[in-house]
Each structure stands twice: as C-alpha cells, then as structure tokens.
C-alpha cells in the first residue's frame, strides 16, 4: 500500500477495500484483504484456484454480501448503493452467462435494457461493440452457435454496452486457446489505452504480466504480495533464472563460490531453479563447477525471470522442506 501514497492524492480511488472478509458458513474464503484501485489502471488479482478471487470480485459488484470490512466503489459503499454503482461498471463473469437462445445482437440489446439505455442509443452502442469485438458478421447468429472465443468476446462486449468507468474481468481468458486469448488481450489493451479502469483476476501469470499495472498475489484468501509485475520480479527473484536438470542435493556443490550471485533457489519437479541478477556469470560458474566435479548437467537453460517464478517462490515450498521430492510445487 505504501508505494501508492505518492499518487493517491492525485488519482481517484475507484475501488477501496478495507479488511474485507468473506465467510461461507465457518469457512473463511477471504481473510481481511485491503487494496485500492486507482483510475485508469489495470489492477490484477492473481492466485490459484480457490484463492478467493471470485469471492472478492462478487463483493465488488454487490452480488455477494460482505461478511465484514468495507468495500467502496466510486467512493460509495457497495452494500448501500449497489444499483447506482452497478450502472457504472461492466462485469465479465468467470462463467459465461449469455442468453444462449438469443442472437448476438439481441444479447446486446436485451442487456442494454437492464441499464435502461434508450433503444436508439443502444443500437448505436451495440454496433460499436460488435465492431470492436469483430463480431459484426455474427450479429444474427444464435449464441449457442458461437465458438468459445467468440462467446468470450461477446461477454466482454456486453460488459461494455453501458460504457463502464470500471471493468471487472473474472478470469476472462480461462479455457480459451492461445490464439483466442491473444485476441482478447489485444482488445483489453485497447480499452486500457482508452482509459478504462480494470480489475482483472487470473491464474495465468502471463496474463497478469501482459495486462496489469499493479497486482495482488493471493493465496487461500490472503494477500502474499502487492506491486507492479516488474517490481515483484525484481524484488523476489531477480532478472534471470538458471534452470538446471540436477537433484537438490547437488545444488551446494554446483554453486560453490557463487556468493550472492544466487538470490534464491527453488526445486521444481526434476529441475532446480536458481534466481539471479547476473545470469551469464552464474551459468559460467556452474558449468565450471560441474566440469571440476565431473557432474553431468543434462539440462541447463538461462531465461528471463517472470511472475511465475515469483509465484513459485511465494507459494511453493523452500528447499529445506522438500524431502518428498518432485511434488514440491
């Protein structure tokens, strides 16, 4: 939070969540989560299945009652002002809930009706949305006959019908093939450039990296970390990762003399990941050590680090408690 205080004075807070808790019976799905989303940014909730992303999202748009804590959207309390707030947001839910019997066009028009948009204006808006989503040719097709990617694009388009100031996307690309995913990302980037504030949940680290300015890493209803993707990578794992096909018992000997070249390490399946800021130097040193000790390196790969590594480091186990071996992740 502290890294935002500099801009919070200037930028509008669109979402402010304080000590947000969600319980289902005795089970606490969200355990006191606080964050703010500022105007114009794309904010990510990143976490594995069951982390509590959907639970948080449903509280933001007032679907699910808040157990305790506070949720303000556009500066107003969601539980008191849901109707007014919902006119200003667009929601792309995790599960498609289009009207399957209706045509693409009718889906948009019917949905526009829920916002009491005048018919003329709704037509104009629906036309623009179809254009943006490249679905114009499909206007008369029944939703049942669309591909998964097209349905997702229509769901996104539908969420834009009221020109929302805040767009909420709950795992917008889960289940799509890579091509459809990239197509959707392009659209989201365009919306972001146009200044739409976005809150996006995902369990794809690549997606968070591609789209989010800032993000929370969530696990089991708790915040593990918060920051920009680049900062998180820099802080937790350094710039590069050296992947080695060795057992964890060989790490010590192979990294002998590496000193602070190795920022951290992690066992992933049959590989060991060494996190570093100076990849080439470390790679050379490891190769030298291996040769000296006549250890065969079956696999050695140097690559830029990414959020996935951060995630692994934050949620995965450390080297010491991996006696079970490969299932460490």
């Amino acid at each position, binding site marked *: 939070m502290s890294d935002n205080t500099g801009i919070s004075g200037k930028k509008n807070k669109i979402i402010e969540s304080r000590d947000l808790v969600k319980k289902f019976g005795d089970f606490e799905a969200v355990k006191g989560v606080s964050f703010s989303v500022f105007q114009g940014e794309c904010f990510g909730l990143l976490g594995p299945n069951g982390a509590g992303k959907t639970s948080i999202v449903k509280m933001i748009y007032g679907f699910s009652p808040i157990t305790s804590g506070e949720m303000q959207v556009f500066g107003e309390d969601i539980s008191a002002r*849901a*109707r007014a707030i*919902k006119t200003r947001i667009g929601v792309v*839910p995790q599960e498609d*809930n289009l*009207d399957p019997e209706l045509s693409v066009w*009718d889906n948009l028009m*019917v*949905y526009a009706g829920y916002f*009491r948009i005048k018919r003329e204006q709704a037509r104009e808006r629906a036309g623009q949305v179809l254009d943006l989503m490249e679905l114009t040719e499909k206007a008369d097709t029944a939703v049942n006959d669309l591909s998964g990617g097209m349905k997702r694009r229509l769901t996104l388009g539908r969420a834009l019908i009221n020109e929302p100031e805040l767009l909420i996307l709950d795992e917008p690309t889960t289940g799509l093939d890579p091509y459809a995913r990239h197509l959707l990302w392009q659209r989201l980037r365009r919306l972001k450039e146009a200044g739409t504030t976005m809150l996006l949940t995902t369990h794809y680290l690549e997606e968070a990296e591609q789209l989010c300015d800032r993000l929370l890493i969530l696990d089991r209803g708790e915040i593990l970390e918060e920051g920009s993707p680049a900062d998180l990578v820099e802080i937790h794992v350094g710039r590069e990762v050296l992947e080695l096909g060795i057992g964890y018992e060989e790490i010590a000997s192979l990294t002998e003399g590496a000193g602070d070249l190795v920022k951290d390490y992690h066992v992933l399946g049959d590989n060991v990941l060494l996190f570093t800021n100076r990849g080439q130097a470390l790679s050379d040193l490891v190769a030298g050590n291996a040769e000296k000790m006549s250890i065969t390196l079956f696999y050695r790969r140097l690559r830029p680090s990414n959020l996935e590594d951060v995630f692994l480091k934050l949620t995965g186990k450390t080297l010491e408690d991996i006696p079970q071996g490969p299932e460490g992740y």
Partner: protein
Amino acid sequence: MARTAQLLKGVATLPDISWPLVGRVFYRNFKVFMKTWKANIMFNFVEPVLYLWAMGFGLGVYVSKINGLSYIEFLAPGLIASSAMFSTCYEMTYDSFTRMNYHKTFHAMAATPVSMDDVLMGEIIYGTFKGMLYGTVFFMITFLFGLVKSPLALFVPVPLFLLTLCFSILCLIWVSIAPNYDFFGYFFTLFVSPMFLLSGIFFPVENLPAGIRFLPWLTPLYHAVEIIRPLVLGQVTGAVLVHLGWLAAFVALTLRLPLVMVKNRLVQ
C-alpha cells in the same frame, strides 16, 4: 432448521423493486419465448385437448348429467384452469431452474442495475403471462367447441391471472429448494397431478369421501375452477367472490417468499 432460517432471511423486509427493470426481465424471457414458441406450443396444448376429446366426447357419453350439465360442459371450464396451471408450472420449474443454474441468467442480470428482487418478480410475471396465454388459448378452443355459454366468460382472465400467479410463486419456492431436475418430478407427482384430479375439474368435489373433502379447498386450482366454471356457464353467485378472495389472499401472503428464498439460495 438453520437451513430454513437461512432460506427465509429477510422475509420481513421490503423487496428492492424497480418496476421498469422488472419489465426488462420479463421482456428478456418474452424475447426467448418468441424464438421458441412454435416448437413448444404443441407440447402444452395436445394434452388438454386430448383430455377434452377423450373424456368429454368419449367418456362423457357414459356419464349422466352433472348438476344439469352434459359432461363436456362441466369439464371444459376446468380444463381452461388446468392448462393454464400446467403451462405456468412447466415454465417456472424446469425452465426457471435452467435459467438459474445452467444459463446463469439470474447472475448475469444481477451484475447490472437489476436487483435480484427485480429478477424474481420478472420471472413471476413471465410465468403468469405464460399460463394466462395458454389458458386463454384453451378458452378459445372451448369457445370453438361451442362450450362457452355466457358473455361473463370475458372475465375469465381475472381468475386465470390469480391462479397462474399462485403457481408461479409455488413453483419458484420449489425451485429455491430443488437440488436437481429430478426434484421437480416429485412436485408434479405429489402436488400438481393430485390437484389436477381432485380439484373439481373431472367431478364435483362433493363426491370425494367426507374425510378428505376439505383438501381441494386448500388448493388454488379448486378455487380457480369454482370461479371459471360459473363465468363460462353464466351461473355466477356470490360464492365466486369468496374464491377470488381466497386466491388474492394466497398471493398477498406468499409473494414475498420466493423472492427471498431464491435470492438466499443464489447469493451466499
């Protein structure tokens, strides 16, 4: 017990209703209906017409007059009520459940300015509309068979409205506790079919064994039949007002229930 309390939470509060948005919810269902009615209409009509034909013309030949009426004259007004009831019941059980659980239509609408109360009120009105529509069309059929005897029959939509409203409410209450589609089988077998057989459509309820003669009085269908038959035959008495009052009171007392129960099921 805890589960019942959870389902009924908020029953004493006022619903959050915006009537224009209730209209949009209705319109959404109506729009789908316009796409599919041709395929479904047979399903809803064949059965009552078959009853009219088989019971009225077939069985009726062997039945001496009931209350001074030929059997088909006695039967037809009751079938107007039951065809409306069945149409509402199919729509508000299987189809509402599909919208709620599989198409997630209620969720989609609740993410817009539409409130959950708007959604459910729109559903109730749609179920009522559909029952009234099918009831009215069956009324036309009885008219074409020459079985409508009085211009008072023009008031038939009034009891049809109350009847189908009652059943929209009852069905949605059932939806709120239904774990799956099979559950609706019980609804039809345990409630709807016995009601159909024992509510004075096929024979006067006075013919029931004394011990269970009160049962029809507890059902909306019986009261609707007791209003529709006098209207169609032109034999209206003051008793009609009692039956209307019963139906109106039922609606007034139960309307809040499906709104809270379905909402409490969906919103957790």
